[in-house]
């Protein structure tokens, strides 16, 4: 019991308490800005949650996610605030998972040692098998999607088609990260993002289906409509849509967070509860905290 209390207290230092509101505001504002300024079709409304999770731990991460959605629902300043509240559960799980990834050191920069590369390969295989299984299960009904969109039924096994789409994005992001940063750690981070995305989709689907008839008011509704036209149930269509867009969104988000954490001044990161797991033992001495300027 005392151990549990210490574990909790260790994650909620004053520094983390100060970071949380900032992260909540980042969640609410940044996703909206990316859509309005850069006009990109992604949500990225969990950067703050994943950041807190990975620098502070699972509990602050979960708390940041849950509070983000509740506060956005309660005081809807911008964007789709007035419908976001029920997804507090998803956001909480995303934060919790990010905290686990952080404590496992998945956001740490890694060099291309043989051991790291081997571990990365294992991670990719694991996440690939997991994704294949999930997509196989979710799409196990006959190929109605193909019926609805492609004239030739049987030309596509839709679970494989979607699995492939996700994997293309995965490989694309991973190779971009490797070219950009020459850092094997990116493989772990983006794998973690894919896992998070799958979990998020599975949790969100019933919420969507129950509260909003499976729709979100954004462009992805067209996909839901296509599945439904193919004969899927409300829930199934929503889940399939989620399994397409959530993993992509979360892979991009974790990719951004990985990039951010890698670019962060060591001095800032090191003072957070998860600091040493993010900075990692591979940091050269000259990267150790430098004196604060006046």
């Amino acid at each position: 019991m005392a151990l549990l209390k210490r574990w909790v207290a260790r994650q909620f230092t004053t520094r983390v308490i100060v970071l949380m509101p900032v992260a909540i505001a980042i969640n609410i504002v940044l996703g909206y800005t990316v859509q309005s300024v850069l006009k990109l079709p992604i949500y990225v409304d969990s950067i703050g949650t994943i950041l807190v999770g990975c620098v502070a731990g699972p509990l602050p991460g979960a708390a940041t996610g849950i509070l983000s959605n509740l506060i956005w629902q309660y005081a809807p300043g911008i964007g789709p605030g007035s419908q976001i509240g029920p997804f507090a559960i998803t956001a909480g799980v995303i934060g919790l998972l990010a905290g686990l990834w952080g404590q496992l050191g998945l956001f740490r920069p890694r060099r291309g040692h043989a051991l790291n590369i081997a571990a990365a390969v294992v991670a990719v295989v694991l996440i690939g098998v997991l994704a294949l299984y999930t997509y196989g299960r979710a799409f196990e009904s006959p190929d109605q999607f193909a019926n609805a969109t492609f004239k030739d039924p049987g030309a596509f096994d839709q679970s494989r088609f979607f699995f492939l789409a996700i994997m293309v994005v995965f490989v694309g992001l991973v190779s971009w990260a490797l070219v950009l940063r020459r850092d094997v750690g990116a493989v772990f981070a983006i794998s973690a993002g894919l896992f998070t995305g799958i979990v998020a989709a599975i949790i969100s689907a019933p919420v969507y289906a129950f509260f909003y008839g499976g729709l979100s008011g954004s462009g992805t509704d067209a996909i839901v409509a296509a599945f439904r036209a193919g004969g899927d149930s409300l829930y199934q269509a929503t889940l399939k849509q989620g399994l397409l867009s959530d993993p992509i969104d979360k892979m991009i988000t974790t990719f951004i967070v990985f990039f951010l954490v890698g670019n962060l001044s060591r001095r800032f990161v090191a003072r957070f509860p998860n600091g040493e797991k993010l900075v990692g033992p591979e940091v050269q001495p000259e990267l150790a905290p430098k004196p604060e300027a006046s």
Partner: protein
Amino acid sequence: MAIELGSVRYRYAGSASSVLGPIDLRVEPGRVVGVAGANESGKSTLCLVAAGLAPGVIGGRLEGSVRIDGVDAATLRPHELAQRCGLLFQHASTQLSHTTATVFEEVAFGPCNLGLPVAEVVTRVWWALRTAGIEPLASRDPARLSGGQGQLVALASVLALRPRYLILDEPTSELDPAGTQLVAEALERIVRETGAGILLVEHKTDVLARIADEVVVLDHGAVVLSGSAAAVLADPRLAELGVEPPAGVRLERAVRASGLEWSAELEEAVE
């Protein structure tokens, strides 16, 4: 009775070398000790150390002793330190709590944290607002103030904890001339009326010339010049230490350098 730093050295967590020290410094109640020096010469670190927050809150390693009114700062917890020694930074926006709707409540944030009775909180808030010279702002929204006003609210918020000493880290560096003037006036009033001891880090040597009794100059973490404000600010080594001398001193130097005499008439005109 004083803040006393005895041969203090400090290094940040994970850093191999000291960024500060050795430093011996004494801030007595009713006195203003100015600190000048180039950027990254250790001035901010000195503030954190003197306020007892380093290493208490940010880690790192301290050698030597920091005593506040004879008590070893290392034995005091942050909220106890806060009631002995107030700390103010350069950006007003980072110091306000951003949880309050009025300046009154913002200033009350500290006393409320201490769990004081409401009547005591109210008394302290009015006192702090009066001392900082911002009673008329009490009902305003702290998020909608000018830079100078915001800094004075931050100052009042620190005063409300009734510290005997104030440590100010470049409180005017982000302010326009009007804002700088407001803060300088408030500091003069605080010393006069409360007898607080002030450690003031400041780039604007004109401000130091106006309100500091003594000035120390830091270079690479160590005190290289110290003495009365007038003497230190007129020291010819100031510029090479990265400190811009006050306007009057620069003018005097320019006049002398051109072979002219610094007459009483000139000195009066520059005052």
